[in-house]
């Protein structure tokens, strides 16, 4: 039995100067065959493996990660969690995730530091205000908490903001989701890894997938950096590299891979206790528990796999942040980085079966996948285990690009994708 994390194990280990905490997960060599293989050891992949084991009793499962756990977009996002999406299909998916977030630390016995501090989406003009009212009404019809704040309400909720926005980005109001907030992104990957490992899932790092063995339209296994692994079911959860893997399996995807940037500042005392997002300027900001301001910027306009963003995007975002928060003008940025996001033409993800039998894909989350991690893993595990989509992810099939049933969240999703 794995050590449970609680106050007693903490006290016991404190006595031993924290020298012999057991490893959170094993690092086994891959077996020659599994019932299911998950390609991609980020939050979504690990969550998929966890729910496969927990809900579908499929424990002969391996997660293959090309580098280290959570080293891709899971560790590169701005940690924002919300579910205030416009369309019914998206609302159902993200709210499903939100409900799982609310019990996640207890479920995993791992503190993911989920903090429901409230997420504001700013309105800078009359059109934004109307869009916000429309979205808030749609959210409420879907049972998602959401409300409209006027300018004074925004100032009361977030005193650090300057409502004049330097004249360029005046704040006229905002939508507020009080259940939204942030979570510690690394802890999400580690928590799912530990919990999945405890149920028997093999987590194999530094194991890139190089190709697939497919016969009669059915997947037989995967060729990896650590040899061939037989598997009748393979779930691809590769984020930015979705098209690279799909090409190797012989089909095409409607995704474009672009770097999305984020930055953190030097740490300061608490000044911002909520999450502020502005779709119009594509900037978001919150403050981490360490005190750093965590700032999200936009995507590069061209295809890129370089895990770094271009400077004009950084400049534009920081310009907007300085107008909205003049008090941050003299802060120094410590680090900036990029993650490769795979964006779909309708800015909605793909959680689907593929033209290859036994091969499933979870990709296309674009700029907003982190918030969906638990829900995505949960419904994708269902899709893999039963070979049928869950009612929640059925609309997010690859087939929608053929049928024309797009879920167009461009702009509608409270942020310009």
């Amino acid at each position, binding site marked *: 039995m794995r050590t449970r994390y609680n106050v007693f194990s903490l006290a016991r280990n404190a006595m031993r100067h924290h020298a012999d905490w057991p490893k959170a997960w094993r690092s086994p060599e891959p077996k020659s065959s599994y019932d299911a293989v998950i390609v991609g050891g980020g939050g979504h992949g690990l969550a998929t493996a966890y729910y496969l084991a927990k809900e579908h009793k499929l424990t002969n499962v391996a997660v293959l990660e090309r580098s280290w756990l959570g080293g891709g977009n899971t560790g590169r996002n701005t940690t924002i969690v919300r579910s205030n999406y416009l369309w019914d299909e998206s609302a159902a998916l993200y709210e499903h995730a939100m409900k799982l977030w609310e019990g996640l630390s207890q479920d995993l016995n791992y503190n993911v530091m989920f903090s429901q501090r409230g997420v504001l989406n700013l309105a800078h003009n009359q059109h934004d205000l109307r869009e916000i009212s429309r979205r808030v009404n749609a959210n409420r019809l879907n049972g998602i908490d959401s409300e409209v704040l006027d300018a004074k309400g925004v100032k009361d909720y977030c005193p650090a903001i300057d409502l004049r926005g330097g004249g360029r980005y005046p704040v006229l109001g905002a939508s507020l989701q009080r259940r939204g907030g942030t979570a510690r992104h690394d802890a999400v990957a580690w928590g799912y890894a530990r919990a999945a490992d405890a149920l028997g899932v093999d987590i194999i790092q530094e194991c890139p997938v190089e190709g697939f063995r497919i016969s009669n339209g059915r997947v037989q296994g995967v060729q990896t950096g650590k040899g061939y692994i037989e598997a009748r079911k393979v779930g691809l959860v590769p984020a930015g590299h979705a098209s690279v893997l799909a090409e190797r399996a012989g089909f095409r*995807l409607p995704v474009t*891979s672009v770097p999305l940037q984020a930055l953190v500042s030097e740490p300061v005392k608490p000044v911002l206790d909520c999450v502020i997002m502005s779709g119009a300027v594509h900037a978001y900001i919150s403050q981490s528990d360490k005190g750093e301001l965590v700032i999200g910027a936009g995507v590069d306009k061209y*295809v*890129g796999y*370089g895990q770094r963003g271009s400077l004009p995007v950084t400049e534009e975002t920081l310009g907007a942040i300085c107008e909205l928060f003049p008090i941050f003008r003299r802060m120094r940025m410590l680090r900036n980085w990029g993650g490769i996001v795979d964006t779909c033409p309708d800015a909605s993800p793909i959680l689907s079966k593929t033209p290859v039998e036994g091969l499933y894909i979870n990709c296309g989350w674009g700029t907003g996948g982190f918030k969906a991690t638990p829900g995505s893993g949960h419904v994708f595990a269902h899709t893999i285990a039963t070979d049928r989509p869950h009612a929640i992810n059925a609309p997010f099939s690859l087939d929608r690009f*053929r049928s024309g049933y797009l879920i167009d969240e461009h702009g509608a999703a409270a942020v310009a994708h």
Partner: protein
Amino acid sequence: MLLIDCPYCGPRAEVEFSYGNEAHIARPLQPEALDDDDWADYLFMKTNRKGVMLERWVHSHGCRRWFNVARDTVTYEILAVYPMGAKPPKLPERSYL
């Protein structure tokens, strides 16, 4: 920041340009003969290459003319610039895992 060598104006910063995505997508000559799968492929499916990508750019804040670029999407190196309608130059294949 990319420095893009506009064939008409010379090297300029990337902020002067707009991106036109994948080049050399041929519009179907007989649209009425296409089924839904073909349309989906034409409209939505992307090459999205990790390696050398052939793409279109337009010098929006300059001469406003379109041209093609061959660019490495990992190193961001621009390998060739060539006019619209021209065949892509022969370039060594680059592949990344």
